[in-house]
């Protein structure tokens, strides 16, 4: 699934399927879920019967040709709305089909116990249950979601993520989660199945993009209620018009009572069909945009909540700064030359494969020191451990170490020494600049400080400024000490930071923001992120993360790109904006329709009302037809907008409101006038009105 490339709006295959689906969706049991369009369907049926009655008896509601023409356009209105929904669903279905290919039933080896050597039986992946253990060997598909309990292997996850480079999956740690439908390329894995059949990640993803189990979001429900209420109001307004009109005819002693067909036409024009017809398409399309950004949400509610988020907790590494810190300076202690410091630092880093370690070797090279082989030096590498928080080498009686200042201070203290004040000062100064100080010691002597610089990502500061204008606070989460954190926070332009963050502190921070009335979004990947992810209102788990993290989150980012959070917020906002703007547009349209239909409906009773026909339409029948045709065509015209979403440039709420009110509110009032006039002229020119 190459989900990152945007699909064209109208693919012919999709359009064909959508056309067929629009007719299938006429089933009243389905239509009733959308009250606005259901009313239109009932109206269409009613006018069809009126038309046939007029055709047969020759003295029906009004002229049969007119009734049937109105009826036809009312049916088109329903079909156009169905088409919009079918188009949105079709785009999701196409993606689901691609995913389904990955979800094949495969033969797999179910193990009797959780080790590779255990006895196994060959079973179909479809019967695997949660807690079963399976053995997967190179070339085989992993049968279902699970956790690696033994082994390490490279896995091709392109079926899910679209990323072709294989990833490493191993037991223990943060890379133990595997997804059904991905392929083991090398070695083997023993996997404990963690999902019941039919509830795997892939299944959820398919039902999500298909919109099959799409339940309405809170805002969508609220909007549905409002639209239904408006429909009832206008239903009352038009139904009562019949006795009002009869009374008027009786009083005026002239004219005819407004026909049922015109009343149905008026009703359909007044009720918010534009938004009613496009509402579900907007929701499905919003979800689709998220899928295109390679994010899978567990519910539409989560997407909507993303639009509401006003605090983003962002991990420093990978989101705000580039993943790796770079050694940028050697600052020797008094009485130590730069060269000595560089030499010791290089020795301590020779076997250190971390990016930081390698950058020290590179920097030392710039000081004229070539790389050496540990073996030649007869040195033994002392790896980094969580207890010592140092790494280095032991050679020829020397103990060369590098590590955080407090770790080295402890190391020196054990040898009866202490960290010199000058080095301490450098450490503090370096931290203040937002860099990480590593102290290098040779035995009991502190040689100086290696400055590791965090590189803030290009453009991130502007992004944060944009977010701030939208009213979203950014909070940087980092394990760095407060000084370093403050400096990077200032450089990156975040609003707040949490230094030396532990999972508990993250959780507290989120709760703290929430009690102050904020909605918090965060990303996370590790198992220890799970509580915070569960607490956050919008929690995006990295696909590379653990099963626990994925289960705690309400979205999974397949690209495992922490910056994605910002895009998710934008998609959430855009979906709400599209709904709101089209609702406004839909209601604003009513004004012009009144001006078209009211004079036409009562022209025979009260000719004085002709003054209200400011569009100077051809005839009463043409006026009614034009309004109905406009009402149907505007749905089609707005399908691309509903699918793409309205433009949502980051700006403060007040500014966004002004813009959308001008375009969709004022535009909604004005646009129908020329459009109805043009349709009227066309009908006149065709001689059908």
């Amino acid at each position, binding site marked *: 699934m190459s989900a990152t490339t945007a699909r064209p709006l109208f693919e012919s295959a999709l359009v064909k399927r959508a056309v067929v689906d629009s007719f299938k969706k006429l089933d009243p049991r389905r239509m009733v879920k959308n009250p606005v369009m259901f009313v239109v369907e009932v109206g269409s049926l009613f006018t069809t019967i009126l038309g046939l009655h007029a055709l047969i008896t020759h003295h029906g509601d009004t002229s049969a040709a007119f009734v049937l023409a109105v009826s036809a356009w009312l049916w088109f209105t329903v079909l156009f709305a169905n088409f919009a929904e079918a188009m949105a669903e079709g785009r999701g279905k196409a993606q689901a089909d691609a995913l389904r290919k990955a979800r094949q039933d495969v033969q797999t080896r179910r193990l009797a116990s959780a080790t590779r050597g255990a006895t196994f039986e060959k079973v179909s992946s479809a019967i695997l249950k949660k807690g079963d253990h399976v053995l997967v060997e190179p070339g085989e598909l992993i049968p279902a979601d699970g956790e690696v309990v033994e082994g390490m292997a490279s896995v091709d996850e392109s079926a899910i993520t679209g990323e072709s480079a294989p990833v490493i999956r191993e037991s223990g740690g943060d890379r133990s989660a595997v997804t059904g439908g991905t392929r083991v390329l090398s070695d083997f894995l023993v996997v404990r199945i963690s999902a019941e059949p039919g509830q795997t990640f892939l299944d959820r993803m398919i039902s999500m993009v298909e919109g099959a189990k799409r339940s309405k979001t*809170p*805002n969508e*429900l*609220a*909007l549905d*209620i*409002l639209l*239904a*209420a*408006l429909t009832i*109001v*206008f239903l*009352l*307004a038009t139904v*009562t*018009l019949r006795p*009002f009109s*009869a009374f*008027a005819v*009786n*009083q*005026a002693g002239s004219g005819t009572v407004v026909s049922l067909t015109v009343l149905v036409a008026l009703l359909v024009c*007044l009720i918010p069909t534009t938004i009613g017809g496009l509402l579900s398409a907007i929701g499905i399309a919003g979800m689709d945009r998220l899928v295109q950004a390679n994010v899978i949400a567990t519910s539409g509610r989560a997407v909507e909540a993303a*639009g*509401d988020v*006003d605090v983003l907790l962002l991990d420093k590494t990978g989101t705000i700064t580039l993943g790796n810190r770079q050694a940028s300076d050697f600052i020797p202690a008094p009485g130590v030359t730069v060269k000595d410091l560089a030499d010791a630092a290089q020795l301590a880093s020779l076997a250190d494969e971390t990016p930081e370690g390698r950058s020290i070797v590179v920097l030392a090279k710039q000081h004229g020191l070539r790389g050496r082989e540990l073996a030649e030096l007869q040195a033994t590498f002392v790896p980094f451990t969580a207890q010592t928080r140092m790494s280095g080498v032991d050679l020829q009686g020397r103990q060369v170490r590098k590590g955080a200042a407090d770790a080295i201070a402890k190391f020196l203290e054990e040898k009866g020494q202490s960290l010199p004040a000058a080095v301490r000062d450098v450490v503090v100064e370096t931290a203040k600049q937002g860099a990480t100080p590593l102290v290098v010691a040779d035995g009991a002597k502190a040689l100086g400080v290696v400055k590791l610089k965090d590189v803030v990502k290009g453009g991130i500061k502007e992004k944060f400024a944009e977010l*701030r204008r939208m*009213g*979203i*606070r950014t909070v940087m989460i980092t394990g760095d000490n407060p000084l370093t954190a403050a400096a990077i926070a200032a450089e990156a332009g975040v609003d707040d930071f949490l230094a030396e963050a532990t999972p508990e502190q993250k959780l507290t921070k989120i709760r703290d923001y929430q009690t102050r*009335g*904020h*909605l918090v979004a965060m990303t996370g990947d590790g198992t220890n992120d799970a509580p915070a992810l569960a607490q956050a209102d919008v929690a995006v788990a990295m696909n590379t993360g653990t099963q626990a993290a994925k289960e705690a989150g309400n979205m999974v980012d397949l690209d495992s790109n922490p910056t994605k959070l910002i895009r998710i917020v934008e998609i*959430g*906002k*855009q979906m*709400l*904006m599209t*709904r*709101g*703007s089209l*609702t*406004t547009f839909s209601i*604003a349209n009513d004004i012009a329709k*009144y001006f078209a239909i*009211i004079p036409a409906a009562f022209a025979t*009773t*009260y000719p*004085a*009302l002709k003054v*209200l026909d400011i569009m100077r339409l051809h005839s009463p029948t043409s006026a009614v037809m034009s309004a109905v045709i406009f009402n149907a065509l505007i749905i089609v015209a707005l399908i691309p907008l509903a699918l793409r979403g309205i433009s*949502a440039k980051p700006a*403060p*709420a*007040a500014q*966004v*409101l*002004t813009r959308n*009110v001008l375009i*969709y509110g004022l535009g909604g009032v004005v646009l129908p006038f020329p459009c109805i006039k043009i349709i009227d002229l066309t009908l006149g020119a065709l001689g059908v009105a």
Partner: protein
Amino acid sequence: MTAHAWLEFGAWLALLLAVAWPLGELLARVLGESAPTRFERGLLRVAGVDANAPMDWATYAKAVLVFNVLGALVVFALQRLQASLWLNPAGLPAVPTDVAFNTAVSFATNTNWQAYGGESTMSHLVQMAALTTQNFVSAATGIAVFLALVRGLTRAQTDSLGNFWFDLTRSTLVLFAIAVPVTLLLMATGVPQTLLGVSDGASTGPVASQVAIKQLGTNGGGFFNVNSAHPLENPSPASNLLESLSILIIPAALCFTFGRLVKDRRQGLALIAAMLVIFIPFTLVGLWSEQAGVPQLSALGVDASAGHLEGKEVRFGTVSSVIWSTATTAASNGSVNAMHDSFTPLAGLGPMVLMQLGEIVFGGVGSGLYGMLLYVLVAVFISGLMVGRTPEYLGKKIEGREIKMAALGILLPSAAVLVGAAVATVVGAGAIANPGAHGFSEILYAFSSGSNNNGSAFGGLTVNGTFYAVAIGLCMWVGRFFVIIPVLAIAGSLASRKKVAISAGTLPTHTPLFVALVVATIVLVGALTFIPSLALGPIVEHLQMIGASS
């Protein structure tokens, strides 16, 4: 429009705002969260209620209903029994059942629709013990419900909306405290206050006290049949000014109170601004239309230099009459100093539309503001979506439940107007005095007035028949309590919500743009409902009138 019209209207508005502002601040202090005084505790103890018991929305609503049903029953009983009770100097007989029902509902719902002639139907006892009492407590009920809604907005994560009995007592005392000085001022302007039935050959009675609260409490039920067009109910320009200002003074002041209570004065200013944006144009159109006169009458040689004077008190003329008629229909007052039936079509259109909007442009005491807030919630909802957030108002998220209730509160009174008028055109057409489009206007006006608890009458329609008495009675009940219950449900649901923090991403609800959106919502949602029926009434009347002259 004459310079006199501009000047009088301008000065009148300025005076209104100048009094409403400080009064609103004062009301905020009195109505804000404070414990019952010893006097109030005493009163409530006599009634056997615990003033401190917190009520959730359903309990609060139940208390409102119980109180008002009992109130209506008392009014009904007193009317039926007045012949055998005291203070009936004119010896009036029992009020007929249908009219008594209509009147009981009318005064319990703060409508004061009068299907009867005041001085010739009701004894002093009924006027004072039943009607004047209801004038106070029905208005106080409105304030109480408004306070409950404010608490819903300001409180967080609780189900308590306060205590109805305490709110009612406090609000009644506040109304009393305002009514007493206004009564004295009215007496100073010449309004009588006596227990005699007849004085100098004219019917009279305790007029000033009833007029004060009928104006202040947006009641409108006059002592006399012709209401404030009667020379004893409204004897002088001074009394006219005082009475017309009293119509809007509390509803306007409550906007400022609202701002204070929600701790953001700009919110209150935004509401009053939205009200004025609707109120001023309707008044101006009315003034213009009345001063332009009727071409057909001019053609007959009627002097139109003073405007269209049919149905007006010449003491007040067109300007004071139009200001009054617009104010009385903007607020759900319904008292009149001229006959609305005789207005030019456009001057009659304004009052009709103001009522059909749901009596929310100032509206009734308390009820106008909570009705307005229903529209604000709808406006917040649509515009909130437009800025890409779950809509929120004053830090409270607006979701399905609030929208459902707001929609009901807006929809049901409109439904009562339309359905009532539709039935009337079929079964009640015989009661109209004028044929043609004007007859339809009379019916539409009656149901607009009743269903929105205004109580003013267009006249021309004979409404004391059983059909109108019962139908309008039912409409008044729907228009009052089928709004109060949704409002309280919203209050309950908002109170249980957390408060959301305000940021640059929050929709500001105090800006001119938002005021414009609220007005647009009111006009689109409220008025679009009635445009077809208005087209068959006042609009076509106007077009026929000007068409015939050209």
